[in-house]
């Protein structure tokens, strides 16, 4: 048990070891690798701050929570936890034992296309069908806007979607507004890579168009 005297003057390596059950040489290696703070003084009577003890306890909790965590991962994690949070975890008022990796550290969120994949997966429902059929309406008549239609067809071909009859029902049009007066409409279903390409093309077109009007 830690005493008031320990709080005031810090703990020796042996006291740290006794408090945590961690071998002194292991504690030294943690200090050398920057995982926990080192002693405040040098020599045989070197004393470690209270924070070293707290961080050592949190380190053990992290190890218990996930045996696969590397020391480097733990070091980075401990650097991100404030002294008060470390204290709270160490004394049991805030338990971040499972903080990590099982479902936490290292476990990334779903892939960036997951939401889009989900929305596409529910297109078989009335929600999805309706969205495609109504939102992506056909572009204006080609007699009035032949250049835009040609651009759309060219872009559809460019991103790997062959142009199909504009009169087809339930077709999907992908529309991107370029300026208040001009939008880009491309027919077809696009995967993520193709969409990225389409957006890059749109950005370039928008830049060209807006620069043209401002000069």
């Amino acid at each position, binding site marked *: 048990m830690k005493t008031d005297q320990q709080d005031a003057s810090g703990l020796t390596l042996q006291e740290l070891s006794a408090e945590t059950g961690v071998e002194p040489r292991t504690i030294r290696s943690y200090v050398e690798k920057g995982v926990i703070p080192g002693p405040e003084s040098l020599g045989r009577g070197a004393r470690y701050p209270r924070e070293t003890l707290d961080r050592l306890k949190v380190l053990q909790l992290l190890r218990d929570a996930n045996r696969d965590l590397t020391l480097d991962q733990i070091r980075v994690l401990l650097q991100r936890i404030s002294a008060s949070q470390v204290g709270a975890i160490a004394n049991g008022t805030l338990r971040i034992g499972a903080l990590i990796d099982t479902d936490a550290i*290292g476990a*990334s*969120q*779903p892939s960036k296309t*997951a939401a889009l994949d989900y*929305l596409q997966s529910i297109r078989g429902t009335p*929600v999805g069908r309706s969205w495609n059929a109504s939102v992506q309406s056909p572009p204006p008549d080609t007699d009035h806007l032949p250049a835009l239609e040609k651009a759309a067809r060219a872009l559809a071909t460019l991103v790997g979607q062959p142009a199909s009859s504009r009169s087809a029902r339930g077709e999907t049009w992908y529309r991107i507004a370029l300026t208040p007066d001009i939008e880009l409409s491309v027919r077809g279903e696009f995967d993520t890579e193709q969409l*990225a390409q389409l957006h890059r093309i749109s950005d370039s077109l*928008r830049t060209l168009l807006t620069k043209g009007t401002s000069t």
Partner: protein
Amino acid sequence: MITNGNTLVAPEMIAEFDRTLVNTAGGSVRHLVVTIRAPRQRPAADEPRTPLNLGLILDASGSMAGRPLAATKAAALNVVAALPETDHLTLVSFAEDVQLHAEAVRLDAEGRALITTLLRSLDTRGSTNLADGWLGGCTSVARRHAVCDVIERNQVVLLSDGHANAGETRPQMLAKHANELRQRGIVTSTVGVGHNYSPTQLQAIAEAGGGRMHDAEEPGDIAQIVMAELNDTLATVVDNLELRLTVPSGTQPEPYGTAPFTPTATGYDVLVGGMLGGATRRVVIKLKCPAGEAASTLAIGLSARWTVPGDDKRYACDVAVPGLRFDAGNACLAQPRDIDVAKKVVEQWVAHVYYRAMVLNQDGDGQAATRFVEQEITHLRRYCAGVPELQEAIGGLDGFGSSVALQYTAHTSKEVMLRAYKLARGESNHRERETHDFATLSAMEAAGRKAARNRRRDGDVK
């Protein structure tokens, strides 16, 4: 790794029971109160905030004509003006159809000009295909999310004044989609306009979508509320907060309030959603306990999982839960209730009763609503017996129980549900006028009925 300065963004969580002894014979009801406080940390002033990939989904149905649509446009223009050029905006309107006006437009000078022009040309048309409009806007936000190289906050704000009456209308299905999208990184908040929107639909989306539901009672509230939602979004320090409750076999948990509660392999998940810096939320779960051996412990496990805006990791922690100890029935009865905890329980319990009864009332089953309220009053009276400050909290329920047999007006029912929702979440309204308390709302409904009867009677006389 976790951002917001260099400090771990971890909510503080405290779990308490109103009583810690449970009857060895089984059947004890105990309440677990979990108080969650989000940290106040904000990014340092010189640290750029996470860019926003925002979708504004606007109701353009016929009922929005005039002031509501004008106010909505003004609100959207305020948003456009307030956001920096690092943010992107999708603009969708819906009526019987859905129109994608702009998708993930960067809010630089050209982008602002484009959105401004598009908003000015927006007009009303037809019925309310809310689900398609919302999912359409989510699709646009998801498209940008899929191809964007930097971490952005993907947020959709859905604004509507009506009941969805085309496309998907079932609250449970809307909630399912909202939940799936939340888990995939898209958060949805909702703004109900006027008195005739569906609180159950918009709330289902906001609750399961990890966002917030707001009420814009008057068109004049819209701009303020949309900006407040935007500020809330930017002030959110914890997202997707879920509590995972692990209970021994035979234990029956039931949460109060409106938070989504779903069974898992090991217990139940309660979705708390996003939390603003410094905010406090309270989750109250009623536990009906099984039988057990004297002096043994009924171990309830609780952990929390959350994400942090601007980070691509998920975090978790265990929450220390006091042990429930089995003892003889007499010892259980003799154990005093923790009054501070009991106050928190009663506040959420009463809100829960009002909310559930109102859902039944609006479903057209007034008799079931009355039965439910009467049954809960009995339990509440027993729970509050001998503690005057607790009894005060249940004072208005008697009148409510009898009045809820008849269908409430859309306005009063919305106000009751809104108050319960805000109470359960510990949130205030951003609108000009705060909601009345439950007793006042119930009295207002009764007065409205009396006035209507008088008008009918006077009409008969004439």
